[in-house]
């Protein structure tokens, strides 16, 4: 990017900020940084700049770089939820492309600031991950790079299994009470005088309620872990908790940003060429995808539909729901503040929208993908289900002292979607590495409950 373009971009950013303010957006202050492509996909691969080193990050980086090198995809924008927010602009983008990205970014930052699910996120996360990375680097010095890597492999294999609602939880899980020792041979003689207590207070469950936060539970209760290992688990958990609101609001957040970049760019004085370039880029971002949902497209469609229905309510909506016309914008800001993807889809994906966007349900049949359903309610419910727990199976700790032997009993809360058993068995090996005792996972296979176990030597599978 030459100096003239840089200066122009600087002016454009001020302009875009003013327009965004006028339209009602209220973002954190934003720091934009112009970077070369390698840095862009590096940050994309790590999620945040300065995160700890791990080969999976290296693989993601390599993947991004390959896609870019072959001209397949390009990351246009990257924005970090912090205060002030950080956003990265690609130095090889044209001026117009960067203008669009800036508008898009300001809407994202407004979203970070106001959406309820982001309320408790750490706004100094860049500093936090740098400190975390430093600690992990120190552990590498102390305990060896391979040792730390091996441990991180295990932790990262279950990194999605945290509980984002943990702050609303009661008390931390108490550790199990030491159980009374098994009867010794002469106990009966010693207790001849006073009658033995007939019943021990019934076996207390541990944890008392099923525990969704596997990482926290293991960090707190695994017996053999060293302090540095517990710390690594908590670092991974902390970083995961930071990312979860973003995973929960992908559609809404991208829809919100797409809605605003279009409206802001319309207010900018664009040349004819720029107008065409903008239209082309906007269309590319919103292109529907055959095998999954394009969050930009679905999000924007739903938001525009909401705006229309609240600006021009139908007769029924007016009379039955008492909806006043002209409330569109205000309603959008309310949705931006209160919803996440699951509630957005459940509350606002209408029959008309499903039909207009041509959504369908497909399934692998032989070596082909076949459409099996287009009914709008089924489509809606499947989307909601696939986004529950941000797309991951819901797994809880059922018993942390299974068979009174310190074994870990996990349970997959089955809601109609079966697990990839080969992967689950290999993941159990990693859980064993963390827990240090045999581990079990109850799930459903072919509609029958099964128990997968790993005892440190072999995986077993039995029907329940």
């Amino acid at each position, binding site marked *: 990017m030459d100096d003239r373009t840089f200066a122009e971009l600087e002016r454009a950013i001020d302009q875009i900020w003013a327009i965004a303010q006028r339209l009602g957006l209220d973002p954190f202050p934003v720091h934009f940084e112009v970077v070369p492509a390698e840095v862009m996909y590096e940050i994309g691969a790590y999620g945040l700049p300065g995160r700890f080193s791990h080969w999976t*990050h290296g693989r993601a980086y390599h993947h991004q770089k390959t896609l870019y090198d072959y001209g397949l995809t390009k990351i246009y924008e990257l924005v970090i939820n912090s205060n002030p927010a950080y956003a990265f602009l690609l130095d090889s983008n044209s001026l117009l492309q960067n203008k669009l990205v800036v508008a898009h970014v300001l809407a994202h930052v407004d979203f970070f600031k106001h959406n309820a699910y982001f309320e408790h996120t750490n706004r100094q996360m860049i500093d936090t991950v740098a400190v975390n990375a430093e600690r992990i680097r120190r552990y590498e010095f102390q305990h060896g790079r391979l040792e730390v890597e091996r441990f991180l492999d295990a932790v990262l294999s279950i990194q999605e299994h945290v509980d984002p609602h943990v702050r609303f939880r009661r008390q931390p899980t108490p550790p199990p009470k030491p159980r009374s020792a098994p009867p010794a041979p002469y106990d009966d003689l010693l207790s001849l005088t006073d009658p033995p207590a007939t019943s021990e207070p019934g076996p207390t469950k541990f944890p008392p309620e099923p525990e969704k936060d596997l990482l926290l539970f293991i960090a707190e209760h695994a017996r053999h872990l060293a302090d540095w290992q517990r710390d690594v688990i908590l670092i991974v958990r902390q970083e995961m908790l930071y990312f979860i609101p973003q995973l929960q609001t992908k559609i809404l957040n991208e829809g919100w940003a797409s809605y605003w970049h279009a409206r802001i760019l319309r207010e900018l004085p664009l040349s004819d060429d720029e107008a065409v370039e903008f239209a082309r880029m906007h269309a590319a971002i919103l292109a529907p995808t055959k095998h999954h*949902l394009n969050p930009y497209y679905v999000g924007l469609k739903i938001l525009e539909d909401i705006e229309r229905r609240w600006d021009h309510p139908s007769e029924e909506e007016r009379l039955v729901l008492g909806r006043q016309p002209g409330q569109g914008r205000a309603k959008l800001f309310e949705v931006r503040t209160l919803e996440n993807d699951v509630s957005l889809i459940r509350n606002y994906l209408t029959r008309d929208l499903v039909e207009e966007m041509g959504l369908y349900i497909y399934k692998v049949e032989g070596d082909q*993908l076949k*459409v099996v359903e287009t009914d709008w309610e089924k489509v809606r419910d499947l989307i909601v289900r696939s986004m529950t727990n941000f797309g991951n199976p819901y797994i809880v700790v059922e018993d942390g002292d299974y068979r009174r032997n310190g074994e870990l009993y996990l349970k997959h809360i089955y809601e109609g979607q079966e697990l990839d058993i080969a992967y689950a068995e290999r993941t159990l090996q990693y859980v064993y590495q963390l827990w240090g005792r045999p581990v079990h996972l109850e799930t459903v296979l072919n509609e029958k409950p099964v128990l997968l176990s790993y005892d440190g030597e072999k995986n077993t599978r039995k029907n329940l």
Partner: protein
Amino acid sequence: MRAPVTLERHDWSLHRKGAIDQARHAEKIKEAIRENLPQIVSEEAIITSDGQRIVKVPIRSLELPRFRYDFGRNRHVGQGEGETQPGDTVGQGSPAGPGPGKQAGDQPGIDYYEAEITIDELANLLFEDLQLPNLQQKVTENLETETLKLKELARKGAFSNLDKRRTVLENIKRNALKHKRPVYGGISDEDLRFKIWVPETRRESNAVVIAMRDVSGSMGEFEKYISRTFYFWMVRFLRTKYTNVQIVFITHHTEAKEVDEETFFKLGESGGTKVSSAYQLALEIIQRRYDPNAWNIYPFHFSDGDNWGDADNRRCVELVQRLLEVSNVFGYGEIREGPARSTSTLMSAFQQIKDPRFITVVINDKRDVLPALKAFFSPRVPEASGAA
């Protein structure tokens, strides 16, 4: 008021974090390839390649497993152009499912990573610890090996190769000429002397490998495939490490004949088996062309061991002993598919040969090819005969 927005750019050219972690990932791929070498060695794609190409080798265990849904058994939502009806086909196979935030090669249903590697890189990994066993100094030296040595001096070069001693000497010499005093000081560009890498060819002893292969009717597809695989790597290995190894190719059924390399590798003929014919021919060739005083001689033979009869087995033992007198090592590989089969009568007959330079291996499975290579081409003579 100015907007609370800032725009900056910095020099990122020294930024390397992603590249470093990527290097670690590449290292892990290499480790995985090394671990899977026994399977990879007998990949069909490699043996049938022209030897130049990049081959793709499947590596398991490089994907970090996690609890995830089974893509193939569940339903998914997609977007069409409208008008999509149940029963329409929207794609082939299993597409990449949406991963949680990270898109790195998340292909559900496929739990291996396809690494790309050139045959040469693979060969380097394979041949790291292999060499011709018992190589001896012979009268005429004809075998060339090449090494790089740091020597010779140049006035230009990389500073890491600066020869400090010579540079100081040059400086003192120049001062002596200029100021009539041999002192050290004021180093200038003309004083600098660098070491440079010079390839150095060492001549080693002559070596000839006599590759014998059973092409009789009893050799099934598996047997043929294994012997081909073994010789494919053997020939590559010899050509990579030694520029001047001669290879004699002999095929046999009831009669043996010397063939060229191409014919040798073409899949075989049919008929009965008389192993002794091959050994006889090997001996004749040695007598005619390769004087044991001048040559290191390595006969190798692959067969399924279904020989024509006890009489011929006895004759084979006799011939092997005669061959051992003139050879450095004799290798016999018996290929018998499946774990349950007992060894052949020929193998039993060979048991009486106690010479440690006589090496036998049994190959039951594709994975045994690499151990066989290692048994035959380990740097020193194995203590006892037989690997596998």
